[in-house]
């Protein structure tokens, strides 16, 4: 069981709501994924409309909403957007995304840290999306983040865990859950992230843009379960230590 702040999750697969070809298909895929935490861009929903089509498809008792601040460029804008989201969507959970670079959507470490400090004081449960930077993760943890969300590779790129060496350090050092976000392109990437000890993964593009998003959502669900089981079962070490003969140390026997 994964615990973040006050919530417990039996699924370690978190999902997004963008890029689907319809709200109905999104709903079916999210249900197939078993995901209990689903992120929603503030910019995409009509916060004043209780019948917003996207939101109405997310009304299932096991699904918790995770509003995100996609579109903001500074800490100040993020804090403002977060307060609106809390009021409109009635949750103090927040995926903090500050990417002033709209081309590659690279997160801004400085603004993210500032916003985390600010939002922690305001009582938010903050899950910041950041580069796979171990020092930044520790700083965010100290500033009051409830989890950290380092990227596997550029968002939407489906390139998998390009940052794996840094993810391993983050996982080793972190006292809050580590959720690998962005770049996970295939169920095998998700399984790999879980095998190295990530607490959860967040997947959007790879499900939404798949030929069959519902089947792909289930594939991710199973991959995350398998990866987590493998982590808990303790993987055997890689590589082959056994060598048939001992050309370097055989002389010891002759001494």
């Amino acid at each position: 069981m994964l615990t973040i702040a006050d919530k417990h999750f039996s699924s370690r697969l978190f999902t997004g709501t963008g890029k689907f070809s319809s709200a109905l298909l999104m709903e079916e895929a999210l249900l197939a994924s078993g995901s209990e935490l689903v992120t929603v861009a503030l910019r995409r929903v009509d916060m004043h409309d209780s019948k917003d089509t996207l939101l109405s498809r997310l009304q299932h008792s096991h699904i918790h909403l995770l509003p995100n601040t996609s579109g903001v460029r500074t800490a100040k804008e993020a804090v403002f957007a977060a307060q609106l989201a809390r009021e409109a969507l009635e949750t103090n959970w927040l995926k903090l995304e500050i990417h002033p670079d709209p081309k590659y959507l690279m997160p801004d470490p400085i603004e993210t840290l500032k916003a985390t400090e600010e939002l922690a004081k305001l009582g938010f449960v903050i899950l910041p999306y950041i580069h796979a930077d171990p020092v930044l993760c520790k700083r965010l943890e100290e500033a009051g983040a409830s989890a950290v969300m380092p990227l596997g590779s550029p968002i939407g790129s489906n390139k998998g865990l390009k940052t794996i060496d840094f993810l391993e350090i983050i996982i080793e050092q972190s006292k809050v859950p580590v959720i690998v976000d962005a770049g996970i392109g295939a169920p095998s990437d998700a399984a790999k992230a879980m095998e190295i000890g990530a607490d959860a993964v967040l997947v959007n593009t790879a499900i939404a843009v798949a030929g069959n998003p519902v089947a792909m959502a289930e594939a991710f669900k199973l991959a995350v379960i398998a990866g987590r089981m493998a982590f808990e079962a303790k993987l055997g070490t890689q590589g082959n230590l056994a060598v048939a003969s001992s050309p370097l140390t055989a002389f010891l026997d002759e001494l």
Partner: protein
Amino acid sequence: MSFKDEFDQYEWDAVKESIYSKTAADVERAFHASKRTLEDFKALVSPAASAYLEPMANLSRELTRKRFGNTIQMYVPLYLANECTNICTYCGFSLDNKVLRRTLTSKEILREVEVIKGMGYDHVLLVTGEANQTVHTEYFKKVLELIRPHFAQVSMEVQPLDQHEYEELIPLGLHSVLIYQETYHREDYRKHHPKGKKSNFNYRLETPDRLGRAGIHKMGLGVLIGLEDWRTDSFFTALHLNYLERTYWQTRYSLSFPRLRPFSGGLEPKVEMTDRELVQLICAYRIMNGEVEISLSTRESEKFRDHCIQLGVTSISAGSKTNPGGYAVAPESLEQFEISDERSPADIADMIRKSGYEPVWKDWDNVLV
């Protein structure tokens, strides 16, 4: 330092010759590159690439879906004024055209807004001619204050302004500005813009720099296709985009490729661009740049638009009127140009859904500045 410094290093004829001498091998190299350069772009818009249209379309579709998913953004123009002090040889609002001139009042704008909202829109594009005595920054400020509560996103396609003017408009909710160079061919530009402030080529060329310095969220570039060789003009657009992305890295960019449309007494295109060529151009931009937004207006035909939304386009308009008051106040008045696809927004949304895409009406929020 502005784009002009970079632009001045290029010579139109040399660029044109370089594009026309690209070979099949250049096209294939462009295909297989992991990061594509402007040389690759030249190959992709060259005549040599026309033999690769199907694979280009495939790649363009894949790249578009990866970035934008299965969605198409919806927007609609709102013409505020057709007063204009410029002469542009290709435009229905040109000073020398005998049309009734009108600038919408606040009350009239709200009547238009009501109809547009009724069609389901949350993203509006404000359009005017250039009449700096009456349709100026103060007018735009008033309009933004008036309509901001009604829309999640407001874009503008009006005369180029100074940096400080953009800085005044952006906090009032101006999200995006479209500024088309029309052509990057200096001499030809002069020919088509003989009178008015628009005849200043450099001021227009440096408008995106002023917008970038003012911190605009998004800007749109493009040329009017039909004035000059489209391959060469498109290269300069790509060069401009490339410069802007590096310089104003916090801004998003969109492209559009309006083809000259008939209006009463208007200009015949000097250069024709076929439908195949327009598809080649859309795909070439997408293959070079996976992130740029591409929009396609109602200038294009139904069938063409139905297919293009799957090939790289990310936003379209529908039900557009190109005359001030066209939705409610004065529906019978003369339009800037004839639109080609006359289907309603609801019909277009249906078409989008049937093609396996979701029409997106809202992708910004007026609480975000």
